[in-house]
């Protein structure tokens, strides 16, 4: 195995990690605060992808400036509606929420199929994103870093920083952390927990929309694209530890590198199975993930 291949796989690991993180961050957020498993999360990704497609139809090749805000706002609104109509009524019943949101994912998929057709829609990366940085000369001659992948990595880092800032440096974030630690006390001190739940869920959905817009540059936009990401996104959340944004980032990095390693050493088809087994084994060691929420409560999830 030569150095170019090795560094190539390292880059693959980082790139996969950035994609996993984008896909999982919104999920981690709502799971952390509300203990809600949103099986329709993948469909928010899909929704963001379709909004990106619409943006490219409306404004032509330089659509990205419109696509990201549109995907964020559109998905956040859809998330808010979902929270208000269904999830709000199921708080405290996470298993039931899981099933209900799975039903919603079926409905959203079928709706996408009927609106946009079961064939996916084409989204082309703008011209300034096509191409790659190529290393010339030296031991790493021929190593390439595609612009699109670098862009998705930057996007992922940006979203991570934004979320971190929001949670740790803003008033909103303070409320979120307060509710996370003790819902009753936070509520008694005047935090409107219901409203906060809705905002967090909408934020998580909005991030999924942004992720969908970014991933449209690398993957198809079609009714079933969400299911391609959802299981791995769950794994990131579980490995990272519930509600920990930092944990999510580390877990994404870890899973991305394991994937790249497994794919590089064995075959790509075997890597997914290896990844799943590794995660299950990992949970034997740390059942609450890398960065569990510390709590004295007996029955915290």
């Amino acid at each position, binding site marked *: 195995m030569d150095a170019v291949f090795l560094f190539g796989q390292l880059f693959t690991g980082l790139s996969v990690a950035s994609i996993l993180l984008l896909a999982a961050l919104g999920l981690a957020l709502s799971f952390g605060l509300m*203990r809600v*498993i949103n099986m329709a999360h993948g469909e928010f990704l899909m929704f963001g992808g379709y909004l990106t497609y619409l943006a490219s139809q409306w404004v032509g090749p330089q659509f990205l400036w419109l696509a990201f805000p549109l995907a964020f706002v559109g998905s956040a609104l859809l998330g808010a509606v979902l929270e208000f109509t*269904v999830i709000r*009524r*199921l*708080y*405290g*019943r*996470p*298993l*039931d*929420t*899981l*099933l*209900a949101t*799975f*039903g*919603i*994912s*079926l*409905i959203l*998929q*079928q709706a996408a199929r*009927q609106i946009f057709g079961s064939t996916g829609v084409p989204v082309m990366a703008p011209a300034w994103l096509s191409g790659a940085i190529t290393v010339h000369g030296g031991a790493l001659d021929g190593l390439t870093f595609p612009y699109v992948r670098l862009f998705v990595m930057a996007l992922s880092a940006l979203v991570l920083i934004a979320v971190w800032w929001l949670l740790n440096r803003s008033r909103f974030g303070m409320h979120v952390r307060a509710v996370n630690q003790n*819902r*009753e006390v936070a*509520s008694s001190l005047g935090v409107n*927990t219901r409203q906060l739940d809705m905002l967090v869920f909408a934020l998580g959905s909005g991030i999924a929309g942004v992720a969908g817009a970014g991933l449209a540059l690398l993957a198809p936009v079609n009714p079933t694209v969400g299911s391609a990401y959802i*299981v791995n996104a*769950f*794994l990131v959340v*579980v490995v990272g530890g519930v509600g920990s944004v930092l944990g999510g980032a580390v877990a994404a990095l870890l899973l991305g590198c394991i994937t790249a390693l497994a794919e590089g050493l064995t075959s790509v*088809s*075997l890597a*997914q*199975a290896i990844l*799943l*087994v590794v*995660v*299950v084994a990992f*949970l*034997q060691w740390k*059942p609450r993930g890398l960065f569990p929420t510390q709590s004295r409560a*007996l*029955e*915290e*999830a």
Partner: protein
Amino acid sequence: METQGSVSHTVPRPGRSVRAQSVKAAHLGKAALWPTLVVLALLLAPFVLASYPLALLGRVLALAIAALGASVVWGRAGILSLGQGLFFGLGGYALAMHLKLAATPKGELPDFMVYSGINKLPWFWQPFHSAPFALLMVVVLPGLAAYLIGWLMFRRRITGVFVSIITQALVLAFVTWLGGAQGLTSGSNGITDFQTFMGLNLRGPDFSRELYWATLLILGVSFAGTAWVLNTPFGSLLTAIRDNENRSRFLGYNPAAFKVAAFVLGGVLSGLSGALYTLHLGTISPAMIGVAFSIELVVWVALGGRASLWGAAGGMVLGQLAKDRISSAAPEAWLYIMGALFVLVVMYLPEGVAGLLKSRLSGGAGRRPAPLPMHPEVKDAV
């Protein structure tokens, strides 16, 4: 914590009056009427139904056994497994391996192995030449797998949605492996093209009728057996653990052991169901046992009533029949209907149809889901 939201009417509450109890007793005769009618109808079906409806009915009855398993695991033990397809598949594949060998001329390899460039029968296929061994494996393999997975999870006190995600990941890993290991498992095509089973011609005219009787018998035995087990102190303990795992632990029981036992029972039932379903369909493939199957199973059980064996099995049977009908008449609408069912059942019928019927029969007492803490905000009020 997350299990508290589920059904819990089996625990007597102080609020329930003596009058309500006697009303319940009065309705008992009425309640026994329906099961009798259903059993009678199932016994008469082969004499009334044409071949396709009978085959369809037999098929969904086979699936109902898996629903019984889901009812034990979820309804009684409070474990929402999204990976029951794994056990279903193990049972199905165990039988399918034997059927494939039986359909292969002596001295030859199963056709898919030849086409995948394999030239020696893999060691784990060897014992499946024997029918009794394969039949044993139909229950042993899923049981062992369930034991291992359950032991690994519950020992580490992994609960709630984590269990759901892990089981889902496991079934996905299994399906991915099955699809990739084409030479050993026939990959995504699945194992198909069976001829005979212990001398019976699977393609003969009488076979579907015989299979129906066999299915009905196995379903009946599974039902009775499961009902009996759940009626023992073991069943009560499962309920106790579901409703409050920590309190059961403080009382001196080891919840992990009981949960593993329930998980194994659920796995074995799923395996039985998978083997029967393989016979009904004449094929088994990874697509039949994946994530979608596992979730659908749970939904029909939820619709019928997760805590009641009648509800779970009935939900599965009626749900599958409805699916057959509606998906033929309006394929586009089917996913909307199913999606909406998921949401509505969970929101308005948390105990399923069986819960609704039960509360109607008992004179309206407990019509609403038990007044358990639906929100963490009030959890200390219990």
